């Protein structure tokens, strides 16, 4: 999670220096969900994310340096510079898509779940989306279909209470996403998304059941978007959270406190994880800066698969 946090903080700085391109949406403050979910997945478990997907890609196994190169539009990027921040794909590690159209990734995950079932595999599909996607037609069509076909898919909703610039209350009369899927009989749970241990525990349970062929599941993680909708968003629509309050809610610090209390790992190891992450991120920046931009000849060569 430190790798995600440090990576994204660095990306924010690079964005202001115009070294990464396009719309950049950071997940700082919500890394706990990516960490708790992706660390339990296998490479053959297909995962889909959306526009705020750096954390999911890194947690799913995408090498930091290739994610950074992708954000910089370089030929050593995950997608050879053709995707960018909103379209990270790493098929080797099972990251099968990231969509910039909110909610568009949900039916894709159902398709991968269907493929797993028809091929006789116990792979489980996972899709990450925000509470803003829940009002999209794709979400509602997909929940109906996933329930109808009992697909082995886990829908992970990161409910940060904000859909772009406006609060959830302005988008829907239903506060909890888990309530939206209730009539379909989807197995569902709402957890504190900044409590890594809680997310881990519920997801582990859903994953085990899905491996056994059950589904679908919805895990609603209540979390917090520390940054604006995108880098450069002046966030005039809400007040900044107080630093002391954030110290209490920060998923990484909370996990570190829990780990110390439980004796899992101490302050020293937590510090080491952070400094290792900084070194790795700086190496990734150097790698990406050294990588050439892609050749224009690739433009038409990549339109169709051969």
């Amino acid at each position, binding site marked *: 999670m430190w790798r995600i946090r440090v990576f994204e903080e660095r990306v924010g700085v690079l964005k202001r220096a115009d070294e990464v391109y396009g719309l950049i949406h950071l997940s700082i403050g919500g890394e706990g969900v990516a960490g708790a979910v992706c660390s339990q997945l296998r490479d053959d478990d*297909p995962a889909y994310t959306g526009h705020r997907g750096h954390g999911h890609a890194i947690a799913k196994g995408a090498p930091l340096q290739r994610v950074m190169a992708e954000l910089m539009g370089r030929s050593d990027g995950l997608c050879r510079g053709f995707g960018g921040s909103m379209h990270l*794909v*790493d098929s080797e590690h099972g990251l099968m898509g990231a969509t910039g159209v909110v909610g568009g990734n949900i039916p*894709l995950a159902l*398709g991968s779940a269907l493929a797993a079932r*028809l091929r006789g595999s116990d792979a489980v599909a996972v899709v990450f989306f925000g509470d803003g996607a829940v009002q999209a037609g794709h979400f509602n069509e997909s929940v109906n*279909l996933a329930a109808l076909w009992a697909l082995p898919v886990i829908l992970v909703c990161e409910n940060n209470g904000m859909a772009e610039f406006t609060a959830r209350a302005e988008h829907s009369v239903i506060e909890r996403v888990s309530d939206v899927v209730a009539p379909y009989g989807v197995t569902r749970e709402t957890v504190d998304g900044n409590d890594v241990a809680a997310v881990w525990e519920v997801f582990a349970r859903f994953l085990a059941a899905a491996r056994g062929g059950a589904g679908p599941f919805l895990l609603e993680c209540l979390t917090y978007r520390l940054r604006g909708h995108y880098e450069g968003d002046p966030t005039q629509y809400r007040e900044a959270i107080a630093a002391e309050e954030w110290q209490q809610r920060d998923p990484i610090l909370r996990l570190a406190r829990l780990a110390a209390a439980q004796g899992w790992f101490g302050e020293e190891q937590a510090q080491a994880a952070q400094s290792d992450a900084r070194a790795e991120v700086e190496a990734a920046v150097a790698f990406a800066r050294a990588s050439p931009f892609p050749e224009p000849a690739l433009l038409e060569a990549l339109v169709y698969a051969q």
Partner: protein
Amino acid sequence: MSETTYVKAVNAALAAAMRDDQRVFVMGEDVAEGGPYTATAGLAEEFGRERVRNTPISEGAICGVAIGAAQSGLRPVLEIMFIDFITLALDQLVNQAAKAHSMSGGQLSVPLVLRTQGGAGQRGGAQHSQSLEAWLTHVPGLKVVMPSNAADAAGLLASAIADPNPVVFVENKALYFKREELDEHPPAVPIGHAATRRSGGDVTIVAMSRMVGEALAAAALLASEGVEAEVIDPRTLVPLDLETIVRSVERTGRLVVAHEAVAFGGFGAEIAAEVGTAAFDSLDAPIERVGAPFAPIPLSPPLEDAYLPGAAEIHAAALATLGRLPAR
């Protein structure tokens, strides 16, 4: 050779592909019941309802499911019952399927076939009769196929299913039940190759889907008037076999492009522009385009008949390229 129909040829090609390749499966609204035109009749009985999957009326989600399944190694054949309903699936088709290969730097591929049908003349009204293929030809990453007869429907469907890219396969409901002769095992027809349906040296007529038959009828009438028309069926709009069309125009010096879709902004405009550039020096007359008027398709039979272009319009357009008026 045995007697068949276009829709039976589609059905047989689907069954053959499913027998050959376990990865192929069919999904769509009512497909396990055969669908409204019997295109998938009998498939559920032979292959079971896991591989012939009825879906809810959720065009967006089912298109996305088919794309996800294709990305994960299967070969889905998705039916969108009427091309008019493809509007609901366009986000998935345009933003996901068409771009997945390029956007992922070549990591993903989407071997999806989206079968659908368009065409007017059945009193279907404005939302069950359209020809919307031109929209799809504007999207890099999609292939667009429009077979005009049973042999091509079978042969091109086999190629579309084998293709590693998303292919939109546009059938025409007015052709479905015409009787045709066809081999028991029709050969695959490669995507991207036009067919010359009739040879002639005076004017080239490029006609798509149902308009191929109309163009041949117009050509027969023209022949009785001493004009020999060459009729070319592109069969595939993307990729387009421009070379066959240009070679013909270089000989005839005249071109008529005919489709059932609205003429304005239709695919005929693209063919006209391409030929205008590639064969400008060969052209002896302005290129004529035949298509529907810029209006929604009406229900009332006399109005729909007046709306729908056919052999008479193609005949008149061919004569116009020769500087002649049709006899009254």
